[in-house]
């Protein structure tokens, strides 16, 4: 659309210099605002463009719907809780925590009930993990559908979660770890979301009954006051408003693992219980819908993650995958957590095709669309972890594209 926006460039000083320097701004010459004006602060008014957003037409209602995190405007690995993506099936609630209860039942010696007071007295852990909806990038299985990485990859967030390892509660209830290899997690909201959770992940201590997120309590949109955290597994299993855990000896075949979050293959079968979010990455700077201001130096930057452990390597291509360079990984690199990568790039002003490709500690390499579709076709909806391509045009405009 537009040409490179000269107005947005640094004003090269005419005459004595830049008026933004020579004429002292009001804030250098006045008295500012008091402390604690906001007991709970908020972002600058100049950041109003950085919002989570719906994608028009994607869902039929706003309560069984999605809002996407603005990945194109985020730094580092922590997602500000106010910008955490949302996925609700029957709307969100702000539940009174003093009346919330967690029940453990099923193949246990004694069914148990816990209050929030009690759960918060138990030994807790705090860990950084990504959460990605199984449907993230789902619109792009067949062809390009949306313009920016907010919509292609924005069902992704990363937080420091605090909670009690679920295994602690199962031990307190005397769970049958031998026969009870499947758990049901159930929410307290209208959908009372239910998902089957593998006992193996619970035994490793990874699965948390979490109340904390980024230092404070979970936000209502993320399940306040209690949510199951299932690192590496798609978001729908991270049951919000968690009210019950049942220990059982077979999977539960719930609606969101039998009718949705099942992956259609070319042969017409659906894969069921596809839980792990496989290794994936996306370049967020530059990315679709943006316009580079000028030729010259840029730091290509993006996010990589794997539901199987740590990211060990990210490669970046600016020629559509013909040649790759290894990117820098930002520490700390944590298991089942976002990893920020970056690579220096001197843009010569010619068209470019920017891609990233992540590898995880199991040796799994993120596939191209061609490689992914060769096995899974184009109708799967879920678990699209293909390499994303952005086309930088001579004008500086960046477009979402898929390559042949």
């Amino acid at each position: 659309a537009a040409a490179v926006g000269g107005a947005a460039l640094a004003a090269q000083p005419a005459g004595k210099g830049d008026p933004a320097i020579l004429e002292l701004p009001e804030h250098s010459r006045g008295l500012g605002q008091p402390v604690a004006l906001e007991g709970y602060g908020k972002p600058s008014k100049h950041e109003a463009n950085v919002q989570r957003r719906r994608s028009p037409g994607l869902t039929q209602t706003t309560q069984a719907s999605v809002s996407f995190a603005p990945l194109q405007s985020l730094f580092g690995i922590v997602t500000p809780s106010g910008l955490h993506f949302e996925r609700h099936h029957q709307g969100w609630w702000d539940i009174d925590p003093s009346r919330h209860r967690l029940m453990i039942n099923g193949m246990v010696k004694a069914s148990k009930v816990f209050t929030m007071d009690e759960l918060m007295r138990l030994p807790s852990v705090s860990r950084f993990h990504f959460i990605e909806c199984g449907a993230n990038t789902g619109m792009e299985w067949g062809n390009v559908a949306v313009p920016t990485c907010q919509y292609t990859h924005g069902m992704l967030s990363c937080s420091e979660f605090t909670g009690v390892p679920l295994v602690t509660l199962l031990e307190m209830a005397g769970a049958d770890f031998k026969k009870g290899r499947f758990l049901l997690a159930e929410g307290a909201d209208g959908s009372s979301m239910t998902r089957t959770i593998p006992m193996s992940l619970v035994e490793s201590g990874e699965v948390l009954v979490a109340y904390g997120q980024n230092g404070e309590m979970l936000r209502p949109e993320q399940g306040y006051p209690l949510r199951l955290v299932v690192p590496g597994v798609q978001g729908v299993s991270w049951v919000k408003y968690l009210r019950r855990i049942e220990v059982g000896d077979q999977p539960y075949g719930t609606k969101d693992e039998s009718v949705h979050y099942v992956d259609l293959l070319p042969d017409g079968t659906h894969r069921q219980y596809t839980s792990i979010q496989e290794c994936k990455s996306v370049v967020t700077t530059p990315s679709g819908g943006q316009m580079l201001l000028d030729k010259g130096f840029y730091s290509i930057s993006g996010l990589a993650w794997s539901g199987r452990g740590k990211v060990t390597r990210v490669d970046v291509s600016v020629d559509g995958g013909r040649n790759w360079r290894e990117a820098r990984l930002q520490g700390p690199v944590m298991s089942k957590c976002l990893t920020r990568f970056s690579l220096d790039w001197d843009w010569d002003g010619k068209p470019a095709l920017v891609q990233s490709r992540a590898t995880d500690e199991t040796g799994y390499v993120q596939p191209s669309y061609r490689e992914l579709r060769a096995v899974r076709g184009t109708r799967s909806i879920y678990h699209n972890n293909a390499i994303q391509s952005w086309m930088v045009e001579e004008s500086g405009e960046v477009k979402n594209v898929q390559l042949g």
Partner: protein
Amino acid sequence: AGYPGIGRDATPDEVKAWDIDVRPDFKGLPPGSGSVAKGQDVWESKCASCHGVFGEANSVFNPLVGGTTAEDIRTGRVAALRRNDYPGRTTLMKVPTVSTLWDYIHRAMPWNAPKSLTVDEVYAATAYLLNLADVVPSDFTLSDKNIAEVQQRMPNRNGMASAHAMWPGGGLPGSQPKPDVQGSNCMKDCPVEAKVTSLLPEFALGANGNLAEQNRLVGPQRGIDTRAPAAR
């Protein structure tokens, strides 16, 4: 165990109040029954406003029924799922287990008044849906006694696979140790055609709003102004 003062045993009534799930083997299914005819009443008064009188959905929601055939009921595989050109996938085309329908209607429907149906109403609504899909006849009464037989007529009952590596810990039938897809780690002169095969037409760039307003006002770049040329 080691945490004095924390947690207590649940009472039987408490477990009963919350333990409502129904598994594919019908564990958890409460006794009861409901006819297709009664299901039609429930449907028309409590479901049709969103899902359409025949479950075909109104303009807003995804259709629940359609796309299944008598042959599918026989084989347990919905043939239309193999077709790339089939327009949409209804619930009945996908759902392998009747327990799933029962459990979900019971816990979550009607959407704006979940858990308001009686057990018999859930049987009835399920029966009605199954009848719309020709899984059961119009004079059928679904109950805890015959539901296992109905399961044997679910059109997509054999349509599910767990032969993959995406269930952590394995342990499902056919579960695989190795991922089905693997990328390449080629670094130089890789055998790819770096040719654009899909991109949004210029006019569709603004379908998600003006991208200039969806990017920060400072930084390495701006958002593209995607308003109609006249509005710029």
